[in-house]
Structures are given as C-alpha cells and as structure tokens.
C-alpha cells in the first residue's frame, strides 16, 4: 500500500475503511481489484491516480455501493456496506455519498435547483427544507439566483460541474467521490473548480476521494493512491 497514513494517537473513527477487499467481475478469472487496506479519517482527502482501464471505475462502483466486494470488508462510517442489501446501499449512497462524474452530471431537462434537490428525494428527505441550503451552496459556488430556474442544459460545462458539486454536498454526506470532474474544464476553470470543491467539502465536513489521471492535480491532496501500483495479481479491467 502506498497510502501514506500519518501516525496519530487519537482513536480512529474512519470515514471509509477497506479490509482485504477483493473483487472480480462475474465469469472472469483472477481478481480484478485487490486492496488490502485503506482507511480515511474525516477531512483526509484522497487522490487516486490512474489511467482509464486501471480498475478505478470498479473501485468507484465499490466505494459508492453500486457493487459489493466478493471478499473482504468495506465500512462507511461504522456501517458494513458489504453486508447491506442493494436497496439499503442505494439509500445509504443517497444520504452519505456524493458523486460527481467527468461531465453530464445533470438531468438536462430539470432546472438547476431541481437537479440539486434531486438527491433529497432518494434520501427520503423533504426537498422543501433543503431549498435554503441548496441556494446557499449554489451561491457559494458562484451560481447566482438567476441561473437557478434555468434548465441544466443551458449552462456551460464549468457551471454544470459546480451544480454537480452542490448536489453532491447538499445532504452533508460523509464522502464525496469525484471521478475526473475537471477533465472537461480548461486550466483556469480547473483550478478555480478544485479550490471551490475542496472549500465546500471542508465546510460540509465531507471527505473527498478524487480520481484523476492528471498528475497536476495531485498537489491539492495530501494522500495519494496510484492505481497502477496496486497489489499483485490485479488485472486491469
């Protein structure tokens, strides 16, 4: 493991904890993903570097509870994700995990505000009570009020990615998983985006797992996990 864990004395209360996790796609030989140990404390943002095809999509599917490991354990804030039913993992994802994709994060025909509030519906929370926070988050991310009723498809790519951040952080989740969210942005926008995202994540008390092949972004993170240097027997998928 190349995850550099600083030694601390206080009792560990991990946001996410992996123990001897093994995963293979059905019908394939050998493990496609093997990760013996990964522990993140609150506020420890992790950078996962890997080219496409290095198994990072699989890792993200596992971390977000879309799929479960064949072996090993996966804990999200003292919840054993590897033991939950699919439906419970879905609800847990809605409540505790925010996800931001490379691009096209938004339902194009919904308004900006509705896109942010979308997550509330699946987390069994009233959208009304969260409207205030949604507007605040959008404003913090530089999206003024006149943009909120607009259809998501009318926004620029950079704006859309910021709306995605607002949605991911709406419920103050424990974990934010970002899968190359800056790949469609130019350099200036990218840096602004990174700063805003990390600032808002810290504000919400959310731990970020950031996946990218772009080494230039490594500097924003203290903890790094290069996918191509994972343990033996792992074949790219």
């Amino acid at each position, binding site marked *: 493991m190349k995850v550099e864990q600083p030694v601390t004395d206080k009792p560990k209360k991990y946001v996410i904890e992996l123990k001897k996790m093994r995963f293979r796609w059905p019908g394939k030989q050998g493990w496609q993903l093997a990760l013996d140990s990964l522990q993140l404390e609150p506020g420890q943002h992790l950078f996962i570097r890997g080219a496409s095809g290095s198994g990072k999509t699989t890792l993200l599917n596992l971390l*977000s509870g879309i799929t479960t490991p064949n072996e090993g354990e996966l804990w999200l804030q003292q919840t054993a994700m590897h033991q939950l039913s*699919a439906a419970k993992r879905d*609800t847990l994802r809605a409540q505790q995990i925010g*996800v931001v*994709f490379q691009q096209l994060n938004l*339902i194009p*025909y919904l308004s900006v505000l509705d896109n942010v509030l*979308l997550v509330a519906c*699946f987390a069994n929370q009233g959208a009304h009570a969260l409207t205030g926070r949604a507007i605040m988050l959008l404003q913090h991310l530089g999206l003024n009020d006149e943009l909120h009723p607009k259809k998501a498809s009318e926004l620029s790519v950079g704006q859309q990615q910021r709306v995605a951040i607002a*949605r991911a952080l709406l419920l103050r989740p424990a974990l934010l998983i970002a899968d190359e969210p800056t790949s469609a942005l130019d350099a200036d926008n990218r840096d602004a985006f990174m700063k805003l995202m990390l600032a808002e994540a810290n504000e919400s008390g959310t731990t970020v797992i950031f996946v990218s092949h772009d080494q230039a972004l490594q500097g924003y993170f203290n903890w790094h996990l290069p996918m191509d240097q994972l343990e033996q027997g792992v074949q790219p998928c």
Partner: protein
Amino acid sequence: MLMKLARLSLWNRRGTVAMTVLSLVISISLLLGIDHLRHEAKNSFTSTVSGTDLIVGARSGQLNLLLYSIFRIGNATANISWETYQRIQNHPQIGWTIPISLGDSHRGYRVVGTNQDYFKYYRYAGQQQLQLAQGTIFQELYDTVLGSEVAARLGYQLGQEIVLAHGIGQVSFSEHKDKPFTVVGILAPTGTPVDQSVHVSLEGIEAIHIDWQQGAPMPGRRVSAEQAQEMDLTPKAITAFLVGLNSRAATFLVQRQINEFRGEPLTAILPGVALAELWQMLSMVERLLLVITVLVLLAGLVGMTTTLLASMKERQREIAILRAVGAHPRTLFWLVQLEVLLISLTSLVVAMVVLMIGLWLGQDLLAGRYGLFIGLNPIRQSSLQLMGLVLGLALLLGCIPSWLAYRKALTDGLSVRL
C-alpha cells in the same frame, strides 16, 4: 419528484412523445368509437319497432316476416285475406292492429299501404310516436305521406304529385301513371325504416290495382282515377299486420291461436325475439370490426414501446445520474412505467375528447344519411372496460423498456457504456 421527472422527461422528448400519443389517440378513438357505434346501432336497430306485441303474416320464417314487414327487405311469400284480417282484428284480446300492404315502390323506396292507425299506434325507440314534420296524414284516396329520407333525398315538397311503380325494383317499367298521388305530409326522422317508406291508404293501393291483373294492366280495360273513386275499394288482401294486445299477458295465447288459425296458414311472431335473433346474425360483422380495432390498438401500443425502447439508449446517462444520487433499479423501472402511464392516460383523455367532437360533428351526417341516431356520450361500462384494457396492455408492454432500464441500472452502475 418521480412524477416531476417523468413529466419533464416526456416534455423534453415532446416531439416523439406527441407522435406516439397521436398514434395512440387514433387507435383508441377508433376502438371506443366503434364500440360506441356498435352499441348505438344495436339500440337503434332493436328499437325499430316497439309497443307492438305481435307481427302477423302469411306462414313463413320469423326472420323473413320481420324483414319484410318492418325493415322493408325481401318479399312476402303470400298475403292475408281481408276476411281473415277482419276476423282476427275482432279478437277480444286485441286492442289495435296496423295493416300493412306492400308490393309497390317509388324510385326504390317501398310503398306501404296502411290506414290512420299506423300514425296512431306505431311506436319506435321506446314510446316514440311518429311525428309529422310538415302537413297532415292522408285523408283522400290519392294522398301520400312520405318518410323523412324519401322527402329529403328526392327533394319532395308538400303538394307535389308522385307516381307509384308496380313492383319493388329501383327501375320499374310498369308505373301507375294514370293515378298519381299528392304529397300531403312528411314525417319527422325516426332512424327506422319508416324514413324510407312512402305511405298511402289501403284503398289507394286497391285503386291503382283495380284495372290490373297478375302484375300487369288488363288489356282493353282502363279505369280512370275518378272512376276508381266511385268503386268499392275494400282491399282483398294485405301483406301483414302489427298487433297490440289489451294485455301483454295474453301474448303467447294469442300467438298460438293465430298460428293455429284454421282458415289460412298464418305466422305470428314476437318482434323483440325476432329482432334479437336478427341482430345475432349481424353482430358477426361488428365483432370482426372490433377485433380489427383491437389489432390497430396493439400496433399503436407496440409503437409506444418502440419509441420508449429507442429512447433508453440516449437515457443511459440519466440512469447513471439517478443511480448516483441513490435511485434503486426498481425506481427506474417505475419511472419508465410512470411515463407509460402518463402517455396512455393522456392518449385516453385526448381520444375521448376527439371521439366526442367526432360524434358531435358526425351526428347529423349519420342521422341524415343512415338514419342512425347516436348518443354523444360514449362513456359506458364497455367503454370503461376497454379503457382499462388499453391501460393494462400499455403497462404490460411498458414492462419491456422498464425492464431494460432496470437491467441497465443494475449492470452499468455509474459508468455509461456506449
């Protein structure tokens, strides 16, 4: 929120959705329209004659008797002598009779020889009496009262003189040219074969045949119209007569007595029973029509499924996003089913409106051209059942794209495979 998603998603694809709805509207309104017309036609048909307890004619099958006496289709096998008619008429149980004498025509329309009782006792569609739109009923020997369609089609006015033709063909070579009839009355539309009839008195029928023998004018003997008026015009025979009884309870008794009448072989039928039997034969056609419209509906629903299936490809991203925010694959199944429900409900409502407008517009045409009187409200138990069937079939077929959405949600997870 799910509802909002389904609604806005459909609105987002409104072009294709509109075409889908259009095709469904066409097939649903066709289905409901045919079902409606089927019921209305049956109503109209079975109410052709009412209030009549028995129809009496020379011995023949009951359908034959019904067809020529009420629907003016086909011919009588034989006549009833005037003496027999008089004797039965005096039966203590019989309240009234309407004599009918057939055999002549006017430009394809049947001539009905009868008397004033026809206008007094004939009932159709429940308790409706024949109404005169213009003029009066016949009083003089050469007076005639036209059915509404006859007058409208041939453009006849009151006071006009018409010539009756011997026989019932569209084109006749032997006409009663010497004894023209004057139009004195025109009946209001009834939606029954009465509209297609030319009514004259029994004496009138007798008068025009006074110098005829065996279907042709007697050579060398001419009786002018004026001379005929002076002669004894008591009919020698009639074709059939309708009977109203004093008490309905006596129907079967009187029917048996007429059937067993010794003087002459007669048949008495119950019009309701005969009408139902006739409709049974005709209903083959309407059932076939209904089957065809169900197939048209199926085609429309398959079209909807195809459209939804095609849209699934471009909605992979949507599915991934919804999965990312915590939607269960089941939710995506129901999301697509909700869209199916919205499409089919919209189609049903629009189809209903289209049908009502269509009926409203077509009402006059159907009444004028075909004598078919239709109600404007197509909602009845059978149409509600059909609407339920449409909805059920739609949701059943909707399972295909819904299941696809479910599969995609389950297998693709957050990634989008193109």
